[in-house]
């Protein structure tokens, strides 16, 4: 049996959609026995959601006011304790998981694999390197624990219909006081979440200004899409950082990805490779985005985007 611990990301009582994808990765490991750990102030609601994911054998709920808002320095020692006796510890490859999991790995003295896209066994995994320009198959020594983050774009969420038991756990470890949460500022939006949206419309530097960037909103409204941006557009201040798609931003796998005024740097393409259909609109017919686009249109985005919006 391979004992797998999945670390749950949650906020405001809601389980992050990445958790069901991590469970999907966990159950793809042969002979998996999957435990989900929910570390929260209360966490009852998130734990109940986790218990409902098919394939989960049990949910461990650790309640402590210090657990929210989540800070890696506070969560890591508790998770290292919970991880004892497990073969694989999985977290999502979101900023939450990327921040937390290496700290857990170091406390366990375990190696970490980042962004695993497939599990071939409990010791053999596939992961992208060089901004997705190469896929590595890696193997770890058997009998030693491994920590990994799961590339959420590579997995379909595990379905519901599970009925695991929720066990409350007290974890007796000293928690540091050296790290304190101050604030979080997030743009409130009614749009679908970029990471999980079925459709995404992204804008690039060619939009030219923050004001012009709004041009793509109408199209996103028509298609019920989330909005994304290239690094160039974020660097230029046209769009906030959380919209960045690419190697160092969000890696997404929507059914439809529309790139507007994005030339398609390697680092951007790595974030959209798993999209089912890629549409590109760009005035430069030589732009690398057209090499990966399923449907390409060369022309002036300022006239084309309103026209397309009208036709939809």
């Amino acid at each position, binding site marked *: 049996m391979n004992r797998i611990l999945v670390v749950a990301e949650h906020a405001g009582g809601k389980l992050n959609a990445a958790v069901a994808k991590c469970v999907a990765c966990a159950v793809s490991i042969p002979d998996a026995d999957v435990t989900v750990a929910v570390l929260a102030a209360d966490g009852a609601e998130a734990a109940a959601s986790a218990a409902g994911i098919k394939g989960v054998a049990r949910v461990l709920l650790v309640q402590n006011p210090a657990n929210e808002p989540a800070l890696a320095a506070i969560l890591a020692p508790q998770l290292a304790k919970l991880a004892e006796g497990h073969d694989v510890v999985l977290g999502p490859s979101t900023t939450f998981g990327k921040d937390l999991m290496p700290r857990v790995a*170091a406390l366990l003295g375990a190696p970490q694999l980042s962004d695993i896209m497939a599990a071939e066994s409990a010791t053999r995994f596939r992961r992208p390197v060089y901004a997705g320009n190469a896929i590595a198959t890696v193997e770890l020594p058997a009998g030693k624990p491994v920590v990994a983050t799961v590339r959420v774009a590579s997995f379909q969420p595990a379905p519901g219909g599970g009925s695991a038991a929720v066990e409350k756990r007290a974890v007796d470890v000293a928690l540091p006081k050296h790290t304190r949460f101050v604030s979080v500022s997030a743009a409130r939006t009614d749009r679908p979440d970029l990471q999980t949206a079925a459709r995404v419309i992204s804008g690039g530097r060619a939009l030219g200004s923050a004001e012009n960037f709004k041009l793509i909103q109408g199209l996103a409204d028509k298609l019920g899409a989330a909005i994304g941006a290239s690094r160039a557009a974020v660097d230029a201040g046209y769009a906030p950082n959380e919209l960045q798609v690419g190697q160092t931003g969000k890696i997404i796998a929507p059914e439809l990805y529309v790139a507007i005024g994005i030339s398609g740097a390697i680092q951007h393409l790595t974030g959209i490779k798993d999209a089912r259909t890629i549409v590109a609109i760009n005035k430069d017919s030589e732009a690398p985005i057209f090499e990966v686009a399923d449907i390409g249109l060369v022309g002036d985005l300022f006239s084309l985007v309103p026209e397309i919006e009208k036709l939809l």
Partner: protein
Amino acid sequence: MRKILVGIKRVIDYNVRVRVRPDGSGVVTEGVKMSANPFDSIALEEALRVKERGEADEVVAASVGPTESQQQLRDALAMGADRAILVKTDGNVEPPVVARVLQKLVERETPRLVILGKQAIDDDCNQTGQMLAALWDRPQATFASKLELQGEVARVTREVDAGLETIEVDLPAVITTDLRLNEPRYIKLPDIMKAKKKPLDIIELASLGIDAAPLVKTLKLEPPPQRQKGIMVKDAAELVAALKQRGLA
């Protein structure tokens, strides 16, 4: 002395289109331009700015890697680092090993801040800073887009999935940089000349008493699956028709 330790990794340059060797044993490196990992240049720039504000006295750049990494450390010295340390090894080093090496350097140098890139653009691991912070039992502030020092506390704005998060950490602490923390300065010719006179110490990794044997074995590298060649449409109407045909509009 208030020191800042900065990590510099030698990687294939950002602009190179990386190709996998036909036998799957690695990627093509012959005749390929090598540079400092871009996130590490951002880390160094931030350290220099902290020093220029009078909030640090010395910036030390450190690298773990082959002899050739001296080139990237010389560039760091030209940018403004005061001295450099190369922990030399020809083997492949994994983040847990680099973190333990940095921990040794931290014990020697007792820096107030360690600033590292959030990830290297070759292995894309995003682990070393967090691992160092755990081994050192100190705070970590990852993916930083703003850093302010207030006495013995650092206030750091972090780029997270939800937006921007601000945390406060007691010093000493490990900071890892995100893209928008700053824009690194260009190296000027006279600074390259001056950098030649700055100290660059070389330590053999083997002399540090760390087990550097890799735990993760790479069995093979493959190029990613290629996407099917798409179609070009000539106007908005054709585009919308193509979307409708695929059930996407």
